[in-house]
């Protein structure tokens, strides 16, 4: 009885929820890795890539939560801000043209941190430009403007006009060959950002120690494994940073105004708040955070192509946010993690699992030869093989169905109504639940489980 009780109390804490979900995901992956008979190297690799995707989707969902969950801004142009982030960062931080290497165009050759700052600033400025007209309009107009903007950004980086051009890089006005690479992409030939960071922190010895430590269990070339694992851990640290930043923002007076705008903008305005300015600030902050994720996602990948930033990536982030429940930071992280593990990486992992267990032959190349045997002599094998082979497409079908299902059955997300209220003080008496909390302010669900409040929260998001 008491253990059940204490377990329940533990579950109440948000950090525990996140940890439990992450542990469950990792356990599931390790277990299926065992079934697959992965070597230690394979296990570590799959963990590293899983951590990477959990990290990027959780941060993206958190940034989107600032837009939609806190302020009620319907942004479906997430990829546009990510693209601007990484492209501007590459523009600033790539070495000058002609300094060796295979890159067709150079950059300004400034240090990586400067590039990251420039990328985030550019994303925020783009957010400003987009928000300025769209904030005066209904929510669905903002949606259409943002998605159109993200496509304009993609066309810009795709076009041959900006493939390469001259740009002044000294005060004297000397120009250098720079550009965005066009459709064939841009090689990111700056020094490895993770190693640079480690060097800057003076942790090179620790890192080398880690490499040789892993080298004792994975003798053959342990360096890439350690690199991707450490990068994953750094990303998780950034998730924690985003979480902290958004929690602080949400609880500050600024954040309370944002929530008030989400619930009823006219009331917020009647209270004397310049809601337009609050919305623009919040939008720009979220865009800068999205730009940073774009940078973090791609700066270690060696190259970037514009078509990486198709609108579908935006919808991935939306699905992640909706799984967790808009309005809640904990939900965003859990949603991001679940999306990455189950919907994004899961199907491919499942494909590997089935392929390695059953060792099937070659799949038919198209739907016709796959179905013909099924119709002719009830032989389902080619069809199943084709299905397995098409996991990448079917995965998107599954995502669509999951999104529809969520909107029908759990529009408030997995954790239920977790929208934080705009009030600074708890609106209902906190009888027996409040004491167990960590004291960092009102526990969100202690407030939001009040049925009337919850109803208000979900009803306040019609147009405007």
């Amino acid at each position: 009885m008491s253990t059940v009780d204490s377990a329940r109390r533990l579950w109440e804490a948000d950090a525990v929820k996140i940890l439990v979900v992450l542990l469950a995901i990792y356990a599931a992956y390790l277990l299926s890795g065992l079934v697959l008979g992965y070597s230690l190297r394979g296990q570590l690799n799959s963990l590293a890539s899983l951590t990477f995707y959990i990290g990027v989707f959780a941060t993206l969902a958190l940034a989107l939560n600032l837009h939609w969950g806190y302020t009620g801004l319907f942004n479906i142009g997430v990829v546009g801000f990510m693209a601007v982030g990484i492209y501007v960062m590459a523009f600033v931080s790539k070495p000058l043209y002609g300094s060796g290497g295979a890159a067709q165009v150079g950059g300004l050759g400034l240090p990586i941190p400067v590039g990251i700052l420039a990328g985030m600033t550019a994303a925020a400025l783009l957010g400003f430009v987009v928000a300025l007209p769209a904030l005066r309009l209904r929510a669905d107009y903002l949606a259409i403007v943002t998605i159109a903007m993200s496509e304009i950004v993609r066309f810009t980086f795709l076009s041959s006009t900006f493939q390469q051009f001259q740009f002044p890089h000294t005060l004297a006005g000397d120009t250098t060959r720079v550009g965005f690479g066009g459709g064939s992409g841009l090689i990111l030939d700056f020094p490895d950002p993770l190693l640079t960071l480690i060097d800057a922190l003076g942790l090179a010895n620790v890192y080398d120690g880690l490499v040789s430590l892993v080298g004792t269990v994975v003798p053959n070339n342990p360096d890439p494994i350690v690199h991707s694992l450490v990068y994953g851990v750094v990303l998780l640290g950034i998730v924690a940073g985003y979480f902290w930043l958004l929690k602080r923002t949400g609880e500050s007076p600024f954040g309370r105004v944002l929530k008030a705008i989400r619930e009823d903008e006219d009331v917020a305005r009647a209270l004397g708040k310049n809601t337009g300015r609050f919305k623009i600030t919040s939008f720009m902050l979220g865009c800068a955070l999205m730009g940073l994720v774009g940078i973090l996602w791609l700066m270690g990948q060696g190259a970037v192509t514009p078509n990486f930033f198709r609108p579908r990536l935006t919808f991935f982030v939306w699905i992640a946010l909706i799984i967790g429940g808009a309005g809640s930071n904990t939900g965003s992280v859990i949603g991001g993690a679940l999306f990455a593990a189950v919907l994004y990486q899961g199907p491919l992992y499942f494909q590997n699992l089935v392929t390695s267990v059953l060792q099937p032959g070659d799949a038919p190349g198209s739907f016709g030869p796959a179905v013909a045997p099924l119709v002719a002599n009830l032989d389902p094998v080619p069809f199943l093989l084709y299905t397995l082979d098409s996991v990448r497409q079917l995965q998107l079908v599954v995502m669509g169905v999951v999104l529809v299902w969520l909107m029908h059955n759990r529009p408030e997300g997995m954790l239920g109504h977790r929208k934080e209220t705009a009030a600074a003080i708890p609106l209902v008496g906190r009888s027996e639940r409040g004491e167990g909390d960590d004291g960092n302010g009102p526990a969100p669900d202690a407030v939001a489980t009040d049925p009337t409040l919850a109803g208000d929260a979900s009803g306040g998001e019609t147009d405007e």
Partner: protein
Amino acid sequence: MGLTKSLRGRWRLTADRVLAAVFVAVGLLFLVDLFWGLLISGSIAFSRLGTLVWDGVMRGLVVGLAGIGLSMTYSILNFANFSHGDYITSGAFAGWATTYLIAGLGRADIGSLLLVGAGGSVLGGALGIGVTTTPVAVVAGIVVAGVVTVLLALALDRVVYKPIRSESGITLLITSIGVAFALRYLIQFVFGSDVRGTTAAGSIPQIQLYFVDGAVRIDAHDVTLLAVTAGLMLGVHFLLQMTKLGKAMRAMSDDEDLARITGIPTERVVRATWIIGGGLTGVAGYVFVLWKGTLGFNDGWLLLLLIFAAVILGGIGSIYGAIAGGLVIGITASVSVLWIPSAFSRAAAFVVMIVILLVRPQGLFSGRSTA
């Protein structure tokens, strides 16, 4: 909007006027440059402009026809349907499967024909498909495209949208994104991801219209597209102007509750909306593919943002607005290549949409009035 105005008062009004004046000035600048190029410097040939405008009109008619459906659901069901583009694709594939089947019966196996030659098993050019060479197949394809899209729209409404009809527009919008995903990638799963040529490009009869300093080519598929889209647009106009249905739709888009208590069978109106919108959308998809001669699983999605631009431009709910918006968007996208690289032609259309949102958010044909 009214509240904003009264609160922000005159400053906002002046700012709006200045903004509008700037955009008008930029527009005039483009016009002056165009006339300069045409008449004085001669850097733009009349025939080139004519070809671009004709191309834009063709594209614009497709966007407008598909936009009517989007505009109707937007104003009556009150949500931006992001799966609309994939209705276009569904209609196109259904219609083209029929056309392939009729045109190629006996010359290739039925499975590959029904899959519109997935994996390169049958080539449209080899079947000699064209409106003059295989008119029956094309007409049957148009009909099937319309009918299948109607059925699809009704089925999806039944399963997906009806249970959450009373939710907010944003909930429905997000749901429609899910539907769009599922539809598009199911189509890719079945029909494959390759873009295929559908018509016998070389054997389409065409005439050269002499236009000041050169020729504008018009082929049989241009004429088909013009006839089909204009005919359907006229038909919808009469349907909505002459029947009670149109009046009921206008009443519903104004105020659904009021419509219901005055005895309008709202569910039936919704069904009629999907039938008209879906049918027009499917046909638009079919003739678009007939006109451009290629078919891929992404076609409708790529068209969707242009359609949104057209609908917003014309004013949500107005079918004339959708048609006019479609023409403006189509011509903008195609004529813009005179000034900017062609990679940005779609971007130019989006910019026009954003400008309209800035200076006249209610659209050119303002107000919500179906028909």
